[in-house]
């Protein structure tokens, strides 16, 4: 998905993991994904650089669809669709 499309996407769940380091964002994502239904969208906010690599890998393993990253000034927004 393009950045523009991602920006217009309405997430069913937003996880703010900014300010936590590895493995914080991953654990937060894992916890929050349990609260949404299959096919719903989740957004993860992270200021940890490693998360940008970790979340796509995690999605692959958990079979969620990784939709993309939107870069903000001091953090990233990562989008996924629950399997």
């Amino acid at each position, binding site marked *: 998905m393009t950045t523009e499309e991602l920006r217009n996407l309405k997430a069913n769940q937003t996880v703010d993991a900014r300010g936590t*380091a*590895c*493995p*914080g964002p991953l*654990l937060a994502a*894992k916890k929050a994904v349990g609260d949404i239904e299959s096919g719903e969208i989740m957004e993860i906010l992270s200021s*940890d650089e490693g998360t940008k690599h970790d979340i796509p890998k*995690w999605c692959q*393993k958990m079979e969620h669809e990784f939709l993309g990253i939107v870069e903000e000034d001091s953090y990233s927004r990562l989008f996924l669709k629950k399997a």
Partner: protein
Amino acid sequence: MEIEFEKQLVELKKKVGKLENGRKDKMTLVVFSGELDKLMAAMIIATGATAMDMEVKLFFTFWATAALRDPKKNVKGKNFMSKMFGFMLPKGAKKVKLSKMHMGGMGKAMLEGLMKKKGVKSLPELFQVAGELGVEINVCEMSMDLMGFKKEELIDYPKMNICGVGTFLADAEESKIQLFI
């Protein structure tokens, strides 16, 4: 002829069943080192693996067992050697040293300051998170006995057992990942 064929089929089914159950989504770590940096690596890998839906088992042995002691708990009736070991080794996760650049505690203090600033969890916090996530800690009975540690002086942790190398081997055999830290 037909009986022979059936026999082979039964054997094959057994073998396939074994293969299917062989390696599960499970990780087993040997946690041997008693230093802050190495223990942190072990606990970060362990908690991270639970996010990957893996069952995680940690086998704490030798120097690492000292990090599981609860500084608030005291056990009476230890002999001289046990008391000495208890005195010489760090009492709990808060007291462990760095493997490099410890510099009498100065290096550790600096690192802990940085960790706080950057949102990295401290070692005691990592133990707490691991416990909440269902990470199992198995403590080597022989190490405990050698160093004179008693079960009663260990931290309160949800899934903790005192066991031997057999438990580790059985867990490791069916794990996809095994590491020695």
